[in-house]
């Protein structure tokens, strides 16, 4: 595997971004007192690396032609997308308080009408196929744009994911990167149908694969950099992530798809986040 040198200052900057994003997420979840905070905290590092380092996009022009695109297949991770867009200045910080409220742009699952959303998520198994269509489209246009599609380990149980996995390698889409968030949980609790070995499955489907700690910024940045290679193969990064990452008491909680937090606990969680950041 090609080793990638990453500047320490860059990594520190991205870690600071991810920490801010986690703060935004706690602020959001506090409104409704619940939400997909566990998943959001887990994917924060990957999103920080994408939006503030790897992707070519413009916060001032979200629809710019030929942009790199982040396709969030698991729409219920929207809390992380709102956080990264808030951190980039696209969404005002004050608007974060509306997360999950009636008429808010920041719904608990992505909508096409929300800023920075490339695809309505929510019905799992629909993201990768659409990312393939976008990758084919950009390739026909002759742009160098790349598609970064997040999907999750639970979502791998949707058969359409594998229809898409077959097609991406068949069409040689090396402008496509699948980020597979393996957090070990799904709606009914810990993964109900064993999907391992995940990396081997994607390799067998013809993808360039690697498996990393998805909460280690250095690993994430280096893996994304390796996906710049264009060898007629799509790329898959298996991200092993910790639900609730960054807030110890959430990390050790019973693995939960949908976190409910008592109103008295929020200040403690926020304090914990700051404490861990200080360490």
């Amino acid at each position, binding site marked *: 595997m090609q080793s990638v040198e990453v500047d320490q200052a860059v990594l520190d900057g991205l870690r600071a971004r991810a920490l801010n994003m986690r703060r935004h997420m706690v602020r959001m979840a506090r409104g409704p007192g619940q939400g997909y905070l566990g998943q959001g905290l887990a994917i924060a590092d990957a999103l920080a690396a994408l939006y503030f380092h790897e992707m070519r996009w413009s916060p001032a022009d979200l629809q710019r032609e030929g942009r790199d695109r982040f396709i969030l297949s698991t729409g219920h991770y929207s809390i992380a997308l709102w956080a990264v867009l808030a951190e980039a200045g696209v969404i005002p910080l004050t608007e974060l308080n509306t997360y999950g409220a009636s008429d808010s742009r920041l719904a608990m699952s992505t909508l*096409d009408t929300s800023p920075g959303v*490339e*695809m*309505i998520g*929510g*019905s799992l*198994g*629909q993201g*990768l*196929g*659409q*990312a*393939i*269509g*976008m*990758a*084919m*489209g*950009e390739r*026909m*246009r002759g742009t160098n744009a790349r598609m970064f599609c997040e999907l999750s380990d639970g979502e791998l149980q949707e*058969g*359409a994911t594998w*229809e*898409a996995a*077959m*097609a991406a390698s*068949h*069409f040689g889409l090396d402008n496509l990167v699948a980020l597979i968030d393996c957090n070990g949980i799904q709606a009914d609790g810990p993964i109900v149908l064993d999907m391992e070995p995940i990396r081997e499955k994607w390799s067998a489907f013809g993808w360039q694969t690697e498996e990393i700690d998805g909460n280690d910024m250095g690993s994430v940045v280096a893996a994304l950099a390796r996906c710049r290679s264009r060898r007629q193969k799509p790329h898959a990064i298996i991200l092993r992530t910790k639900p609730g990452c960054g807030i110890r008491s959430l990390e050790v909680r019973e693995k939960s798809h949908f976190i409910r937090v008592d109103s008295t606990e929020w200040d403690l969680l926020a304090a914990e986040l700051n404490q861990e950041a200080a360490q």
Partner: protein
Amino acid sequence: MGLDEQGGPRPTMDAPFGVALTELGTSRPNIIGLTADLGKYTDIHPFRDAHPNRFFNVGMAEQNLVAIAAGLARTGFVPFATTYGVFATRRAYDFVAIACAHARANVKIIAGLPGLTTGYGGTHQATEDTGLMCMVPDLVVIDPCDATETMAATRAIADYQGPVYMRLLRGKVPIVFESTCNFEIGKARLLLSGTDVGIVSTGLMTERALDAAMQLRKKGLSVGVLHVPTLKPLDTTAITEFASSVRSVVSAENHVVRGGLATMIAETLFRARLQVPLKSVGLPDRFLECGVVAVLQERYGLSTDRLMAEVESAAR
């Protein structure tokens, strides 16, 4: 084209959809052809041959077919995705609903073997497809009558910005209409005026409606025909006006009656407080047999003779 499909006594044209799409593809570089292992069977092969760089066969995977089409639409292309109606609906429904319709993606789904046009049996007969698709918000649903209208509709839906489901008449398709058939999305067309019985028909049943009306005129019955090629949005104004001008209405469709055009007409007339007797020709609420299409169509009342009998009984 399967041997089991029957052309009428009229002249036919080969692969009108494929011909129209190929022409469109020549003038418009953003048109894309997609299929899920049914290229030869959905008449998209002329496009494939003419524009190989803009044609993709995604294999036997209809959910992915629709997803890829939606993704292509998001990068500014106009994908035409072909498969059979049963697979576009029953198998890929959630993808059509969310990735296409909810997203208002500019995807055109072209669905072969509509209603009872194959004797292959329930697995391949899309008898309830337009009903299902009409239930999806923001989706345009079209059931063309013949080769001329298929070509006109192909051009019209390419110009239309938004998701469309269109039934496909494939192979040697009868030519019923003149080259200027004035197809317009959302508009019904009055083909024949009559005062006794009005046939409101869609899809290939309009050909039979015209034949039935002409024959019954010779018997002294004044029969009108309103052709409704767009099932959604439904031209309720035209239907109401037409129904007001006759003593009795007969609906005719290559689709299950319940949830199809007949139901939509009944609702339209009821809401308009129009009291007109309504008879319906169409498929029953059951899975159909395998066999020869002409035999099955006769059995289920889709033939001209059976339609004539219904119209005559409606006139009594």
